[in-house]
């Protein structure tokens, strides 16, 4: 699975549209929430195409529901494929979770039991999704607040088994590992060490909230020191990996979020060599597509 190294990016959020389009900040790339742009028309797609004409983008979904026992949503896949044709993302990702059952959507990322049944179920569906999209996808580990008593393996083994059986990539969310490690009392280092290096194509960084009894993946804070330390550990194991800072609530001015991405770059550069032309410029390609 060959994917470009995009450098250090930021999640595209509506509050930053004007700043980004007016000033073209020197951010390497943007990740966008796929569903926000799987709409018939109007401002969202207009903005996305303008951003795409200047920056590489990645589509990051929240509703694939790859672990659900409901049938795969073919309309969803068709619309995702259409969006991908329109904006030529560097890759498409979603979460290793389920988001609904019985035809209902919880609009949340629910954990799966870590069982052989779930591995087979998810891996088969990933293969179907990859066939429908005509490309491999990345799956992200989610923050979890509960564990199932009938799980037969730790989360990292489950993740590894799924991606190897499905032959897909990993979006490793460092903050989610940190949060889940606290919530369930496992070693985040052991988690990192169990993940196959060649499968990891993207990192996520974000802030979380301390609720006392548990950590909550709220994406409303700067990246905390503990997550930075774990990120450094991840860079030592996986090398320079395309990294994305998420900030979804109480979103500050764009330069504050961008500063987090720049910090990730500096930290990475202290550990591994980052090619000076790290930004893989796929901008021209999409313009050519549109002209065709």
């Amino acid at each position, binding site marked *: 699975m060959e994917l470009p190294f995009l450098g250090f990016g930021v999640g595209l959020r509506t509050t930053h549209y004007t700043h980004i389009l007016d000033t073209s900040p020197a951010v390497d790339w943007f990740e966008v929430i796929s*569903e*926000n742009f*799987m*709409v*018939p*028309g*109007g*401002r*969202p*797609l*207009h903005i996305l195409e303008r951003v795409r004409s200047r920056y590489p983008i990645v589509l990051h979904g929240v*509703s694939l*529901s790859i*672990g*659900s*026992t409901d049938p795969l*949503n073919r*309309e*969803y896949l068709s619309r995702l494929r259409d969006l991908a044709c329109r904006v030529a993302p560097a890759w498409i990702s979603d979460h290793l979770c*389920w988001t*609904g*059952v*019985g*035809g*209902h*959507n*919880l*609009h*949340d990322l*629910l954990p*799966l*039991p870590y*069982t052989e*049944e*779930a591995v087979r*179920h998810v891996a088969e569906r990933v293969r179907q999704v990859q066939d429908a999209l005509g490309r491999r996808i990345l799956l992200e580990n989610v923050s979890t*607040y*509960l*564990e*199932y*008593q*009938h799980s037969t393996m730790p989360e990292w083994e489950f993740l590894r088994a799924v991606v190897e059986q499905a032959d897909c990539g990993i979006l490793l969310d460092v903050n989610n590992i940190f949060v889940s490690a606290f*919530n369930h*009392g496992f070693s985040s280092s052991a988690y990192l060490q169990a993940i196959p290096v060649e499968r990891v194509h993207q990192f996520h960084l974000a802030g979380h909230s301390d609720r006392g*009894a*548990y950590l*909550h993946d709220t994406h409303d804070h700067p990246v905390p020191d503990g997550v930075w330390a774990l990120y450094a550990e991840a860079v030592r194991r996986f090398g320079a990996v395309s990294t994305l800072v998420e900030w979804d609530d109480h979103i500050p001015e764009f330069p504050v979020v961008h500063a987090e991405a720049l910090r990730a770059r500096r930290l990475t550069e202290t550990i591994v060599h980052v090619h000076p032309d790290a930004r893989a410029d796929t901008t021209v390609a999409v313009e050519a597509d549109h002209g065709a």
Partner: protein
Amino acid sequence: MSTPTLEQTQRLLWKLITAPEGAASGLAQLSAAERDLAASLIGGDARLAAIDRVEVYADMYFYRIRDCLKEDFAAVCAVVGEAHFHNLITDYLLAHPPSHFSLRYAGRHLPEYLERYALARQWPCVADLARLEWAIVDVFDAPDVTPIGAAELAAVPQEQWPEVRFQLTPALRVLRLQWPVHTVWQQVQQGEPPADPVPGETTLRVWRQDLRVFHRPVDAAEAAALEAVAHGESFASVCGRVGELLGEAAGAERVAQLLESWFADGLITGCCAGDAQR
């Protein structure tokens, strides 16, 4: 007890997460067999009991959707107040749990739901206000179709005008309402306390032009003309409908004015006479 299947696991968790009074209350309402299954399903510890772990998800489910609907129906929320809105969404989610993959559609049944909801007795305009707010959401990301200008119509030979039919942009909604709720919407937008409107039949058109969404009240003639055009009626027929309201001569003049404003607002995306499509 045998190991729960993936489907059993998901269905049980869905029940607990969507229980209106929270997961603990939902647990109490399960059948004995389901409670046994639930007890064996989730692990807890001294720091956080199993049901409190499910409660984290129950809270996220409700508050994420409530916050989204609060944005989509900000004026409804301002009229009824935060506490009533909270209860409204609790009840609404029981009747209409989200089924679309996108949160964008979570509120699509709320205007209709409000018609029969108790709050509508205290604030009878809220269902209409919700209709306006949902139309704004709907038009915001409706399909893009490039509008045509008046020159396109001028290019049609005049003798063919009676048979001309117009296409309207998909980013247009015409709402027939019992309350002038656009005044309430405006007050909320301006940060003023919403005042109870005086009841009165009102037709609003909601449309998007240049990526911005607008709305304004229209009179009976424009309402009739827009509906006739939307039904694919010919130019002559549209003039006839407006003529029934205003008289023949005044009707034709009014339709000409309306066409001018529709072209200016980007509402017309095509016109054809017979087989010719422009």
